């Protein structure tokens, strides 16, 4: 059976499963639409959070980011898992005790201010929308490959499916479909990783294989990898080549962004008790870690296999002839995400670092006129099983898994955006007498608009999927996390302080990002080139969220000190949030 048909069957079957569950559990009342009635077991909730959390960025993009850079991109691994520690220790149990639907609900009540609520809605929408753009990039990559169309067509088809998917299921549909999606995606990620790890190192556990010996050469895998990449003029894989400050800030930004992202926090409203919210964060990380400890192995092994394919006789011998290229290269050429250009006209594929000055003399000695293969980092995970010549069903499986990852997160984010608009903006601020039906309608309309915007911006995204998503984390880190944390851990921060802090963090971060990435992410309007030489103190737009968060804390503290302290009932509210006893169901007031 050919690969195309097999892909369609695998993807079709998994979709039928998700849609079946969504229809079976179709949302009835508004309260169920948002939080599945407040009664999901911590382990199941952890699994669903895992699916919600692991998006196109984790599944499709992250290992590719690590593959092409190595140690320096470990930031993604630590950042996207370490945030759960903050979530479990600093936010989840208290927000669960508070017991309302959404993040702006908490900020609005705790800071006794409609303005604070509105600012929180604004922060939430901007961060989530940026996140969805990254997802759409990933959706485009996945659909273009498995339908064998160019990437823009893939994106349009993907957007349509995400739309139907999110609009017709509520959280309840989503919670149980996400459990199914988690199972599909973790299986799809792990199976090829195990196969490849066995092939290269003989160790079936990818995380251990990464630190084992390479079977073919007998030396440790990482040492072998360092050797072949430096032979082609690239930076060593395990070495540290970027600014330590930037790496620190980037990791921190991803961590506090994780704890500030509304679509993750909202998950912890769906467990029955405060203690369950703590366990739930732990379980979520268990299920996330299953993928995250394999990802660095997938990255390293993909890089090694890629170079092995192009240089079958070793990195210092002749490369592969273009006419003899394997099937996977042809498949990816269709999508436009992998390009070959015969710069020196010898019909062979030279792949090396043509920006390295040390390597330039060697390249000219060999008559190489520039690297001829352009591989988009976002394709690495999907192409990985093909590169390793794994059986066709494994390749179909990874297509299904990638779509599960992208779909589940996009749906969760759209839900967070739509509830922010219909519940926090319209119902709580603009039109309190709106009917339940009207609220649901507004929620669906908001989803439709956000998906159109995200699709448009996803056509020319501000970076690879994982990088765009990292920007969203920076925004959440700078705006929402500090407000949430101070709301719980300080009784002194008042309405003025919180509003000033959130606005400072959000605006500062947004402007810094727009200067390098283009206003409203339209690349042609960028004011400075996006590279280390032009960044202020070497801080990349991906890392700036940490600085924004620090500013947020400082401004909120100073402004609060200068203005009137919060009234007694707010201090009582904080007191009650800190105490688990007396937790109610996650229902509307």
């Amino acid at each position, binding site marked *: 059976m050919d690969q195309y048909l097999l892909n369609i069957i695998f993807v079709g079957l998994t979709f039928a499963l998700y849609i079946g569950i969504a229809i079976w559990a179709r949302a009835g009342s508004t309260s169920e639409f948002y939080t599945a009635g407040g009664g999901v077991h911590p382990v199941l909730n952890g699994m669903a959070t895992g699916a919600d959390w692991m998006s196109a960025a984790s599944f499709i993009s992250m290992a590719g980011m690590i593959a092409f850079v190595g140690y320096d991109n470990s930031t993604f691994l630590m950042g996207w898992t370490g945030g759960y*520690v903050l979530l479990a220790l600093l936010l989840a149990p208290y927000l669960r005790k508070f017991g309302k639907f959404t993040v702006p609900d908490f900020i609005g009540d705790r800071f006794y201010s409609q303005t604070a609520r509105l600012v929180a809605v604004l922060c939430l929408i901007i961060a989530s929308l940026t996140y969805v753009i990254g997802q759409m990039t990933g959706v485009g990559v996945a659909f273009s490959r498995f339908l064998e169309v160019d990437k823009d067509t893939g994106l349009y088809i993907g957007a349509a499916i995400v739309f139907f998917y999110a609009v017709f299921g509520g959280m309840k549909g989503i919670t149980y479909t996400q459990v199914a999606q988690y199972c599909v995606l973790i299986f799809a990620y792990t199976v090829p990783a195990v196969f490849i790890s066995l092939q290269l190192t003989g160790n079936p556990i990818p995380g251990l294989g990464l630190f084992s010996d390479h079977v073919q050469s007998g030396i440790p895998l990482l040492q072998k990898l360092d050797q072949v990449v430096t032979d082609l003029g690239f930076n060593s894989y395990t070495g540290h080549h970027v600014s330590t400050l930037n790496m620190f800030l980037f990791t921190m930004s991803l961590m506090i962004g994780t704890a500030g992202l509304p679509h993750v926090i909202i998950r912890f409203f769906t467990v029955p008790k405060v203690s369950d919210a703590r366990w739930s964060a732990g379980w979520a990380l268990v299920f996330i*870690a299953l993928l995250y400890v394999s990802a660095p192995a997938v990255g390293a092994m993909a890089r090694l296999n890629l170079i092995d394919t192009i240089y079958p006789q070793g990195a210092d011998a002749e490369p592969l002839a273009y006419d003899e290229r394997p099937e996977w290269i042809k498949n990816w050429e269709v999508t436009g995400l992998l390009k070959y250009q015969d710069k020196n006209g010898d019909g062979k594929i030279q792949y090396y670092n043509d920006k390295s000055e040390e390597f330039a003399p060697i390249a000219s000695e060999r008559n190489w006129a520039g690297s001829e293969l352009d591989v988009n980092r976002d394709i690495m995970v999907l192409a990985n099983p093909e590169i390793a010549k794994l059986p066709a069903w494994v390749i179909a499986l990874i297509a299904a898994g990638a779509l599960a990852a992208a779909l589940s997160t996009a749906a969760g984010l759209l839900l967070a955006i739509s509830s922010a608009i219909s519940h926090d903006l319209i119902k709580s601020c603009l039109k309190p007498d709106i009917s339940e039906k009207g609220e649901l309608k507004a929620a669906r309309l908001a989803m439709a608009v956000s998906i159109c915007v995200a699709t448009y911006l996803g056509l020319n995204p501000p970076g690879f999927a994982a990088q765009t998503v990292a920007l969203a984390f920076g925004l959440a880190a700078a705006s929402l996390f500090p407000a949430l944390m101070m709301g719980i851990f300080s009784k002194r921060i008042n309405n003025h302080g919180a509003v000033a802090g959130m606005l400072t963090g959000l605006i500062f971060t947004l402007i810094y990002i727009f200067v390098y990435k283009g206003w409203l992410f339209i690349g042609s309007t960028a004011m400075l080139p996006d590279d280390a030489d032009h960044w202020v103190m070497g801080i990349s737009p991906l890392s700036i969220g940490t600085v924004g968060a620090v500013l947020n804390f400082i401004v909120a503290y100073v402004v609060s000190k200068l203005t009137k302290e919060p009234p007694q009932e707010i201090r009582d509210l904080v007191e009650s949030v800190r105490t688990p006893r007396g937790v109610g169901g996650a229902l509307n007031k």
Partner: protein
Amino acid sequence: MPDDIQKNTTESSDTENSAYWSANIRLIRGCLFVWFIVSFGFAIILRPLLADIKVGGSDLGFWFAQQGSILFFLVIIFFYSWRMNKIDHQFDVDDE
């Protein structure tokens, strides 16, 4: 509550509760210290100091960056949940 406690607003409205809260804060501090050391410490800032400890083709810092930190994060969360549930019980504020 009388207004004379306003200088000390982080103090709780009842002492039992406040002891509970400071036990929680102490626990959080300890956990966050470990969180910081295994990620920002061993994997980034202190990596050069650990360069001599070899782990399969690279060094300990690399292992912490790509495997170890994640495993420690898991331990931290489950430890905190377990300890915190005991503390809840001890101060009789648990959610039963």
